[in-house]
Each structure stands twice: as structure tokens, then as C-alpha cells.
């Protein structure tokens, strides 16, 4: 296995995804910053996971093939990142 995980590769794929989506989402420029904010809130374990690498690769492949569905793939990625977001654990009051 890969001891360091897929962190760097996932960051590269995420950057590629953003670059690809930027011209396709010019009608709603607030969408990609929102995706980035989801990415920032994602747990580091998931950011280095093979699962995320697979999702990113799939989304990239699909958006390259079908520009018309760009928001579908962004939404899918947002949902995936949200499902692995860091949860703020508030300390319980005694």
C-alpha cells in the first residue's frame, strides 16, 4: 500500500477539477468557492484516501466528457465531502 496515502494526488486532482469547472460555472461564480470551503472542512483522513481519489477521478472524467452536467458532478463531490466533514465536537457541560 501507499503509506503516505493519496493526499498529494488528491490535491492535484482537486485542482484539476477546479480548473476544469471554472469556465463552465461562470454563470454562478459562487459555486466553486463553496466547493473549496467544503474541501477545507473535510477530514484529513478522507483527503488522503483512495476513495476520494476514485471520486475525483470519476468526476474529472465525466465533466471532461459531459460539460452539460458540470453542476451534477460538483454537487456529487460536495455531497461526498460533506459526508466526510470534520465535526466540531463541543465539550459537554457538566
Amino acid at each position: 500500500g501507499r503509506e503516505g496515502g493519496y493526499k498529494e494526488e488528491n490535491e492535484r486532482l482537486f485542482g484539476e477539477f477546479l480548473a476544469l469547472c471554472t469556465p463552465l460555472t461562470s454563470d454562478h461564480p459562487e459555486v466553486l468557492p463553496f466547493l473549496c470551503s467544503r474541501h477545507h472542512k473535510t477530514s484529513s483522513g478522507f483527503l488522503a484516501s483512495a476513495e476520494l481519489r476514485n471520486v475525483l477521478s470519476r468526476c474529472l472524467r465525466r465533466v471532461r466528457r459531459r460539460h452539460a452536467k458540470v453542476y451534477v458532478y460538483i454537487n456529487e463531490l460536495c455531497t461526498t465531502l460533506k459526508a466526510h466533514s470534520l465535526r466540531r465536537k463541543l465539550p459537554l457541560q457538566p
Partner: protein
Amino acid sequence: VPMEEEEDDDDDDPENRIAKKMLLEEIKANLSSD
């Protein structure tokens, strides 16, 4: 009878429209909760 134009899904994909709407609503909800 004029032929109906074939829909070009490049501009108007229904699934894309729904996903866009969901994203924009979520962004709006996030902004208002700040």
C-alpha cells in the same frame, strides 16, 4: 407541421438544472446561517 428542434443538452440538461438549483440553495442557506 414544423419539426421540433432537438434539445441540445449542452445548455439545458434537466439533471444539471436540478443539481445547480440544489447547490445554489445550499449556498444561500449557508450564507444565511453565518
